[in-house]
């Protein structure tokens, strides 16, 4: 933004022209950010459905566009066409306003989310604070939708959601504070001249803040858990708990307004992954490339963009994976998890980080050793997890196999003569009978 303003000022068009051009530029940039965020959210919907299909041993959407990637556009157009229904007993203005507030809360946060070096709509010097603040607007929208729907299920869902978001903001903010303490700045991206959270980290894993010390690794775990809870995602999806509250706060919504809630939820998944990447995983930093080299070369910045989106995508995948694996917690369990475990541990992490910064001089041998050990431990954890996943997949097989009866290996069973042959046996069967 400053960059645009300075450029416009340098054209010497007079204050009026400069300001009008600046406002136009602002609108263009906002629209661009909005569209990018919308595209990411839509794409995530498709990814979620494809991953769900894979997890559940079925296929998932694959008709619209290659691999079904345009499914979200088709769904969006369908929802656009629907009637904008406002229940007769609902509080009309509030009911109409609520989805916009939720969308504003999530999409406005994208203004301060970095995609790559210098690829950030506005690298505020209070970036992370701005994001934490603006996402809270969504809470108001959710409570408003729950109240204005004049539906008891919606009201319960809205209250649940609000209580949950407000509660989980505490551990999330505390674990973010750990990183802020290490970095000494609130700026998200930064450059060599004005350091931000990303530019202070390095490209290699042991330079990342997640592996700064054991406390920050724990802080990441707490941030991630709280962020999943704030995003109302499984296993914390109580506000939309289908089997309990029908559809929670968006029970009465349909058409475009429902799409607003829906896309905001998925944009939020990317948002939280992007924030975690920024704070803990070195953002767009390329291993072994200096900041000056990145700033100078367009192609290196493009690689950085790829690295950032890749890291965020991995985290998004984990969130989606959660959803199709875990059952849902109960309200009291949710709250006790937050206040009895996450908040105290987050405080310990914050205090531990403060003491660490005081006691161990930055850049010393010991400091580096701790980075290495923590990164090694983190890497080992991921490896163990991947090994377990591989073990389970190998054990039960992950191929989509509809030939159930054919899978029995023992016994005198001829798959081609079963009552209704499936899959390749059906094709074989048809060929033989033809």
């Amino acid at each position: 933004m400053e960059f645009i303003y300075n450029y416009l000022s340098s054209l010497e068009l007079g204050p009026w022209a400069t300001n009008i051009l600046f406002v136009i530029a602002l609108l263009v940039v906002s629209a661009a950010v909005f569209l990018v965020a919308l595209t990411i959210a839509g794409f995530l919907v498709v990814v979620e459905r494809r991953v769900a299909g894979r997890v559940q041993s079925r296929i998932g959407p694959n008709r619209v566009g290659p691999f079904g990637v345009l499914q979200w556009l088709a769904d969006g157009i369908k929802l656009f066409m629907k009637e904008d229904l406002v229940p007769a007993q609902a509080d009309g203005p509030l009911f109409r306003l609520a989805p916009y507030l939720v969308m504003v809360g999530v999409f406005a946060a994208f203004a301060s989310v970095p995609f790559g070096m210098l690829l950030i709509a506005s690298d505020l010097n209070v970036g992370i604070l701005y994001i934490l603040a603006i996402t809270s607007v969504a809470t108001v929208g959710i409570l408003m939708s729950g109240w204005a729907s004049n539906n008891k299920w919606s009201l319960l869902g809205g209250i649940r959601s609000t209580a949950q978001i407000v509660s989980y903001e505490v551990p999330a903010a505390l674990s973010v504070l750990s990183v802020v303490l290490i970095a000494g700045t609130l700026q998200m991206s930064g450059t060599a001249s004005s350091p931000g959270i990303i530019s202070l980290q390095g490209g290699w894993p042991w330079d990342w803040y997640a592996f700064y010390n054991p406390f920050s690794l724990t802080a990441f775990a707490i941030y991630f858990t709280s962020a999943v809870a704030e995003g109302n995602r499984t296993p914390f999806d109580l506000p939309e708990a289908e089997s309990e509250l029908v559809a929670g706060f968006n029970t009465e919504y349909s058409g475009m307004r429902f799409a607003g809630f829906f896309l905001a939820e998925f944009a939020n998944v990317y948002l939280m992954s992007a924030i975690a990447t920024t704070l803990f995983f070195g953002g767009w930093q390329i291993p072994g490339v200096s900041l000056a080299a990145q700033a100078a070369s367009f192609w290196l910045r493009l690689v950085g963009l790829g690295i950032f989106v890749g890291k965020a995508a991995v985290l998004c995948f984990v969130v989606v994976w959660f959803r199709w694996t875990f059952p849902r917690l109960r309200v009291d369990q949710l709250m006790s998890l937050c206040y009895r475990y996450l908040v105290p541990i987050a405080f310990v992490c914050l205090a531990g980080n403060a003491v660490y910064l005081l006691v161990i001089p930055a850049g010393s041998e010991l400091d580096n050793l701790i980075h290495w050990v923590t990164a090694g431990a983190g890497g080992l954890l991921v490896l163990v997890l991947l090994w377990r996943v591989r073990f389970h997949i190998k054990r039960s097989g992950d191929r989509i196999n509809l030939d159930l009866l054919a899978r029995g290996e023992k016994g005198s069973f001829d798959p081609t003569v079963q009552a209704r042959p499936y899959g390749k046996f059906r094709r074989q069967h048809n060929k033989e009978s033809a």
Partner: protein
Amino acid sequence: MSEPTQAGAQREEIVLNMGPHHPSTHGVLRFVVHTDGEIMRKAVPEVGYLHRGLEKLAETQTYAGYMPFTDRVNYLEAMFAEQAYAMAVEALLATEVPPRAEFLRTIACELNRIANHHVTLGCITMDLGAYTPFVYLLREREGINDLIEALCGNRITHNYLRIGGVSYDVDDKWLGQLESYLNHFEPIIDELVALIVGNEILIKRMEDVAVISREDAVAWGLTGPNLRASGQDWDVRRDIPYGAYPQFEFDVPVGPLGRGQAGDCNQRFLVRVEEMRQSCRILRQCLAKLPEGDIKAKVPKMIKAPKGESYASVEGARGEMGCYLVSDGGKNPYRLKWRTGSFSAMSIIEHTSPGLMIADLVALVATLDVIAPECDR
């Protein structure tokens, strides 16, 4: 209802209308839930939305003609209703069922029990928020549906049993298919245990939740897995033997089995998992011992039952499935009455619900395995 608070405002309990259209009510159920925030004061079940007059219909049908209607008593355990009805009529006629037919009935019923528990366990996990196990369990159920389709041509409402026997015999090919399904399915139970039963969140949601004591369970007439989960050792198959069951060895799982106390939701879940294993065991014994011979006793085309009454009950997947039959000597039953497990399970909900949270009600209804059509008939 409303109590004054300190600020002078009124405190009211919310009356929620859960159902008849609600994602977690199995079939068309309705609960009137009185809640104080998340905590319930009470939940009153309302039944009757799926009443189809199956008992009255019997009075207009011939004895043989009513058989397809029994499938509709409960679409998830059609074989059991068929067997209860067939046994009641056979008791009136004093017909001896050939041993091979008894074995085939047992095979069909135990397959049906496994298929039913697939749906039940899947619905429990789905009501508790995990979607994936439901899909996997329904996939395994397809195998059983295929087997039963090969057996009698129908997948859900089977119409397989006849008065005095069964309608179709099996051949070696089908028995081979059954064996290979068992070989395929028994390891799946272990996988199921590893995937679902051990999940900490799931256990926390069900452990010590909605405890039904043994005394309450007996007093409210719970039967089947729900009763056994509460610690009462009772199984119609073993205690009032019928059909071919005296010839088989099987255990009756009784709570407490794993974590939690007798009568909580987790026990009701685990008892059903264990029952699937036992059903597989019975099926294997059926395969080993299947006798040769007729599949149907000689009964007249137009059955006229002698004057009298009879009651026959079988151990269904949801507890005792009983059929009470009165005959006046004519071509049609004079009166027919069904006794089903879901109805008594439904009646205990109002007693158990006070003090539970809304999410616990969902767990309670799911683990009691209440099915609306069986309740309303």
